[in-house]
């Protein structure tokens, strides 16, 4: 106490500092709670957030420059452009292949089941990832495209190896991706070997997902591949998600759990594929869609609107 008084005698304003601290702390906490629970600040963020883009560009300039030098040194700039175009194609092809393979596998497992199975035509586009660091302990990525480029909250994001995550916030010029290893993220998966379904949750580490509260007699072995099951409608079915690494009985002894390792190279991609998903045939589109509510015809006739007289 006397020490604190010494300080105030020497440098003054100790008590007013404390009051100010309390006031600011209250404001900070109020802001955080508002931000977490309501959408007010999302609006602010979506407008102001775009102002941060120049900062991102400057920050990633050294890394981008190095990459460019590397490409130029091999006189491969033109080749690289072609390469990029081909890679987009390849990613899409691979994604379609995964979906088709999953469909076949599911038919084999569950032939006779009346489930028609929603068929999807996958389309997507490549989006640049900002090569900036936003804290390695947070499982987020920033995309160089926002609501102005028609990026929507909830869109799945994949790389050539598997599921990366989904868009959780957009500004007019950027979008934030929550990776599937984020502690707030969960994805419904299917074991390709047995067809068993589960939920894979992030725990905040880049190298693991948790499948908790599995039945104790589950047939899961290390090495089993988990793909997205398509339940919930957020992620299309058939994308590789993770590989099981460990299977154990949990502390209570009445459930089992498994640890799995994501297959996507989460932080190594400079480009990711942003998926749009829509049903192929009109019959398929009449089922329940991604949201809740009456079914909406997915196929809008693509004709120029005739002015009705």
């Amino acid at each position, binding site marked *: 106490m006397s020490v*604190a008084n*010494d*300080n105030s005698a*020497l*440098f003054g304003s*100790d008590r007013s*500092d*404390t009051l*100010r*601290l309390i006031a*600011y*702390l209250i*404001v*900070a*906490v*109020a*802001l*955080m709670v*508002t*931000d*977490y629970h309501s959408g007010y*600040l999302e609006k*602010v*963020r979506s407008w*102001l*957030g775009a*102002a*941060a883009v120049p*900062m*991102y560009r*400057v*920050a*990633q300039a*050294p*890394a981008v420059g190095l990459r460019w030098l590397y490409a130029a040194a091999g006189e491969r700039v033109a080749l690289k452009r072609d390469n990029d175009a081909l890679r987009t194609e390849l990613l899409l092809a691979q994604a379609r292949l995964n979906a088709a393979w999953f469909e076949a596998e599911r038919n084999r497992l569950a032939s006779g089941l009346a489930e028609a199975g929603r068929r999807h035509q996958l389309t997507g586009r490549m989006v640049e990832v900002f*090569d*900036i*660091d*936003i*804290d*390695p*302990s*947070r499982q*987020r990525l*920033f995309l160089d495209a926002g609501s102005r480029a028609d990026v929507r909250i909830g869109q799945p994001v994949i790389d050539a190896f598997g599921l990366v995550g989904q868009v959780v*916030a957009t500004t007019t010029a950027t979008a*934030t991706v929550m990776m599937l290893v984020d*502690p*707030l993220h969960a994805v419904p998966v299917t074991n390709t070997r047995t067809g068993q379904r589960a939920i894979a949750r992030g*725990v*905040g*580490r880049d190298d693991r997902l948790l499948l908790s509260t599995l039945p104790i007699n589950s047939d899961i072995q290390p090495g089993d591949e988990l793909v997205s099951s398509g339940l919930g409608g957020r992620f299309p079915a058939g994308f590789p998600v993770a590989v099981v690494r460990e299977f154990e009985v949990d502390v209570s002894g009445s459930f089992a759990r498994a640890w799995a390792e994501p297959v996507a190279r989460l932080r190594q991609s400079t480009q990711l594929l942003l998926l749009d998903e829509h049903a192929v045939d009109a019959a398929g589109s009449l089922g329940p869609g991604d949201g809740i509510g009456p079914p909406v015809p997915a196929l809008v006739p693509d004709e120029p609107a005739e002015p009705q007289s």
Partner: protein
Amino acid sequence: MLESPAWRLALLLALAYLLTLLPGPGLFVHLKPFWLGLLVIWLALEQPARGTLGVAFLAGLGADLLLATWFGEHALRLLVICFIVRRFRSRLRFFPMWQQSLAVGALLLNDRVVIVMLRSFVAPVLPEWTFWLPALSGMVLWPLLFLVMDDVGRRLRSRPGM
């Protein structure tokens, strides 16, 4: 324009933001110190007229916008750091450098604990050991940073009165 201390402060802040965003090569990202925290510590120690809680709060809000954390997260972290430094300013200033470094390390470690606390309100957190490294690197960098900033500070001080 660039002569005025307010502008210099803005420049320093912009530099700290840039360093924060800069991607490190490979595993160096885990070693990246909390630049904004170091800046706030230095301001509160050496430039008490500028290193106020208000400045810390606003700098934090800027970082929240830039890094898409909740509004208020960085603000709260920087407030805590700034307040502690201002509280013990008279003692910290007369510590020998190694002791001051240790104090800075403790402050930054406390900051990591604050992060864990804030995040665990939403979801259980299980930080890897690399999570604690920025406190260490900040501590090691402090003496060097202090020397550089001393020079900057002399320029800042050359024109008192914002």
